[in-house]
């Protein structure tokens, strides 16, 4: 990925955090419709963001 694509991934990921969960996938597909590499990277990171969310009761000993 080029630095420009990396920056775009970052910006799209951060903007995706504001989208409702149900719409986030289609939002990313629209926002990065012109660049499949960027689109797939953002989709992948958003998926991992969801699985890295706090598990209730796990933290704050």
């Amino acid at each position, binding site marked *: 990925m080029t630095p420009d694509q*990396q920056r775009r991934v*970052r910006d799209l*990921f*951060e903007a995706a*955090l504001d989208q409702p969960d149900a719409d986030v996938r289609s939002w990313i597909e629209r926002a990065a419709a012109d660049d499949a590499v960027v689109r797939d990277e953002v989709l*992948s*990171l*958003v998926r*991992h*963001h969801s*699985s*890295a*969310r*706090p*598990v209730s009761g*796990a*933290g*704050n*000993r």
Partner: protein
Amino acid sequence: MTDDLHAPAADLTPLVYNELRRLASAYMRRERPGQTLQATALVHEAFIRLAASGAPWTDKRHFVGIAARSMRQILVERARARGAQKRWAGLNRVSMSDSLAVAADPESMLPALDEALTRLEKIDAEQARIVELRFFAGFSIEETADALGMSPATLKRRWALARAWLHRELTEPTRADADADSPWPVSQYFVWRCCARP
């Protein structure tokens, strides 16, 4: 010129590193097995001690950046010295639902996290700084945002991005050459340590 009065950042690194290492060693001699190193307290103590002895920096921001990087180095070296596996096979035995048990052996994954962080650094150095401050120095969102001169709202988003990136790196075997059969415990530990913080 002020340049003569203030040592460049590179010259301060050994000073900060050595002070933190000394404090950490003293702390570790007293610690009980399984106890977590209080990184944030050590960083604050080092700052007060070095400031009292006339350390040549002008602002705390400068200090905490160096301190967070030093804590990363100290904690990873300590994990390696204690024989933490490069791969975290040792965590295989821990149930994925038992997050406290996983957290009792957090060192096992530090070398792998350190290597992933070095890869992240090449893509986006700022994200690596964020992880050092949040994860290794234990700074809050507000303290980290202040240290990097960004708003807490921006910091939160960038921290989320760094976490997602590292989570993928540490859990997807094709990316991090991890053991294919042990993605869950690390993920669980990472969730506990990085993501469950306010």
